[in-house]
C-alpha cells in the first residue's frame, strides 16, 4: 500500500514537471525533517484520522456519509457557542471544565448534523450521499452567519469569534510547536472505534446492517436504528475533529475554519481499507504529505491542491486494482 502511494506521488510530481528528487526531499524535510516538521505532520494527521474514523463507522453501516465537512463545521460552531457561555460569560467556568464541555459540544454538534441526514434517509428515503453533500453547503453558510452574527467577537468588525484564553486551549508540549495534548485523542478514538466495531454487539449489528440490511432485518435487527447510530457516531467523530482544531490549534472560528478536513477523511478511510487501525497509517501518510506540501509550496507553485490529486489518484488506483482482482476471482470461481 505505502509503495503504491509513493509511486502515485512520484507520478504526480512527474505529471506537473516538478523535479522528483528535489521535491521528494522538500516534502520529506517538511514532514519529518526536524521536530517542528514532525509536530506539523502530527497536527495535520489529527483531523484526518478523526474524520477518517468517522467515515469508517458510517460506511461500515452502509451509510455513504460525504458530509464530514459539514459535521466538522457544525461541531466547531457548537463548540464556539458553548465557549461563549462557559469561557466568556459573566461567571467563567474553570478552564478544564470549559475545555471538556466545549469538546463535548463539538461532538454533539457533529452528531446532530449527521443525524439530520440519517433521519432523512430512514424516514424519507433521501440518499445520504446527496443530503450530506447539500448539508455541507448549508453548514458553511451557517458558519458564515454565526461568525459574523451571534458568535462574532465583540470589539472588532471582522468575521471571527472571540479568541479562547490560553488556559482553555489544550496544553502544548512546547511554545514553538503545535503538538498539543489533543493529539492523543484521535489515537484513543481509533482504538475505541476498533473495539466498538469488532468487539461489541452494537458494532457487530452495525456492520451486519451495512453488509446486508435485509439479512439483518431477517434476524430481527432494527436496521434503521443502526443506520442512525452509524451516522451519529460518525458525525460525533467529525465534530470532535472540529473541536480539536478549535481548542487545539485555531482558538477561534472564521469562515475558513475547515480546510476540507471532513472531505479528506474519505480517502483516508478508503485507503485505510475502512479499518480503524489501518486509518492511523493512512492519516499519518496524508498528514505528512500536507505538512510536506507546505514546504514545497514555498519553492514551487504546487501546494496543498497537489495532495488532493495524489489522494484521488490513489483512491482510483486502489478501487481499480480491487475491482480488477475481484473480477479475476469471480472468473476463476465461475
Amino acid at each position, binding site marked *: 500500500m505505502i509503495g503504491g502511494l509513493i509511486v502515485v506521488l512520484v507520478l504526480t510530481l512527474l505529471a506537473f514537471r516538478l523535479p522528483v528528487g528535489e521535491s521528494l526531499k522538500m516534502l520529506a524535510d517538511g514532514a519529518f525533517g526536524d521536530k517542528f516538521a514532525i509536530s506539523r505532520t502530527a497536527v495535520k494527521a489529527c483531523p484526518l484520522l478523526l474524520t477518517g474514523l468517522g467515515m469508517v463507522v458510517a460506511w461500515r453501516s452502509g451509510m455513504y456519509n460525504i458530509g464530514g465537512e459539514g459535521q466538522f463545521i457544525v461541531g466547531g460552531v457548537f463548540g464556539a457557542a458553548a465557549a461563549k457561555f462557559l469561557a466568556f460569560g459573566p461567571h467563567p467556568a474553570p478552564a478544564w471544565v470549559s475545555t471538556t464541555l466545549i469538546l463535548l459540544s463539538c461532538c454533539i454538534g457533529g452528531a446532530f448534523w449527521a443525524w439530520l441526514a440519517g433521519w432523512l434517509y430512514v424516514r424519507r428515503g433521501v440518499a445520504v450521499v446527496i*443530503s450530506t453533500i447539500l448539508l455541507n453547503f448549508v453548514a458553511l453558510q451557517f458558519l458564515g452567519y454565526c461568525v459574523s452574527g451571534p458568535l462574532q467577537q465583540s470589539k472588532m468588525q471582522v468575521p471571527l469569534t472571540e479568541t479562547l484564553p490560553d488556559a482553555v486551549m489544550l496544553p502544548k508540549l512546547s511554545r514553538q510547536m503545535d503538538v498539543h495534548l489533543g493529539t492523543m485523542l484521535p489515537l484513543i478514538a481509533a482504538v475505541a472505534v476498533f473495539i466498538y466495531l469488532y468487539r461489541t454487539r452494537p458494532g457487530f449489528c452495525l456492520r451486519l446492517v451495512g453488509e446486508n440490511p435485509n439479512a439483518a432485518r431477517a434476524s430481527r435487527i432494527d436496521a434503521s436504528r443502526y443506520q442512525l447510530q452509524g451516522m451519529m457516531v460518525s458525525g460525533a467523530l467529525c465534530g470532535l475533529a472540529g473541536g480539536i482544531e478549535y481548542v487545539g490549534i485555531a482558538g477561534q472560528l472564521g469562515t475558513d475554519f475547515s480546510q476540507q478536513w471532513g472531505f479528506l477523511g474519505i480517502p483516508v478511510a478508503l485507503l485505510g481499507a475502512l479499518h480503524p487501525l489501518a486509518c492511523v497509517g493512512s492519516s499519518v501518510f496524508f498528514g505528512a504529505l500536507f505538512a510536506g506540501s507546505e514546504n514545497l509550496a514555498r519553492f514551487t507553485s504546487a501546494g496543498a491542491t497537489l495532495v488532493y490529486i495524489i489522494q*484521488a489518484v490513489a483512491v*482510483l488506483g486502489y478501487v481499480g486494482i480491487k*475491482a480488477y482482482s475481484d473480477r479475476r476471482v469471480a472468473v476463476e470461481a465461475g
Partner: protein
Amino acid sequence: MEFISLLQYAAPVALAAMGEVVTQRGGVINIGLEGAMLIASFFAMLVCYTTHSPYLGLVAGVGTGVATAGLFGFFAIILAADQVVVGTAVNLLALGLTGTLFRSKFGQSGQLLSVGRIPAWHGVDPLMVLMLLSVPALWFLISRTGWGLAVRACGEYPKAADASGFSVNRLRMQALLIGGIYAGLAGSYLALVITGSFAENMTAGRGFVAIAMVTFGRWKPQFAFLAALLIGFAESLQYKFQTYGWKVPFQLMIALPYLIALVVLVLVGRGASSPGSLGQPYRKEK
C-alpha cells in the same frame, strides 16, 4: 427580460441535470458530475484565455466534460467499482487538478482574470437556445427512440437488456457520455457566459444540486428542467434581495438553493419512479 435572466441563472444546473437524467435512466448515478463541471469550466476558461475564442473554449469545455465522465465510466461501469467511491475520487481529482493548474498558471491566489464571453443577443446566448431545444430533444431520445428504450431497460433490469442482446455496459457508457456532454456545457456556461472567468471550486456544489433536481424531476428531462428553474430563481434572489431591502442574512440567501434541494427531496422521497437498478454496477454473467 426578467425571465431570460432567470434562465441564465438556472442554465448550469438545468444543463447538468438534464444530462444526468439520461445517465441515471441507464442506471448510473454520476456522483462525479460536480467534478466534470469543474474541469469543464476550467478548461473552457483556459482555452478561451489562450486562443481568445470562446467557441474553442466551449469545445474544450465539452471535450473535458466528456473525458471526465469517461474516466468515471471506466472505473464505475467497466471495472464495476462503487459509484460513490469513484465519484468522490473524481470530484477530489477535479478540485486538485484545477486548483493546481490554476495556481501554477495564474498565481497563488488567482488574479482577477477575465476572458471573452460567448456573445448574446438581447441576453439570449446560443447555449441557452441549445438548453431549451434539449428539453424536447432529450425527452424524445429517452421516451421515443429504440436507443432510449434500451437504455431504460439497462436502468430498470439490466439482466433483461442483456438477455435481449444489448450490451448493458456499452449503453450505460453512452448514456454517461451524453451526461458528460451536458456537464461540459454546464461548466462552460459558468465560465464563458455567466462569469467570463474562473475561480477555485467555482461550481460550488451545483453538480450535486443538479443530481438532487434529477430526483425531484422524477427522472424526466422536462421536469428536471423545471426543477432547475426553481434553483435558478433561488440563485437570482441572492442578487436581488438587497435591492428589495429584505432584512435577512445574506448567508441564508446563498444557502437557499441547497435548502430547497433538501426540502424537495424530503417532500418527494424516493418514490417508485426511480430506475430499478439505479446505482448498481452490472457484471455480465459468464
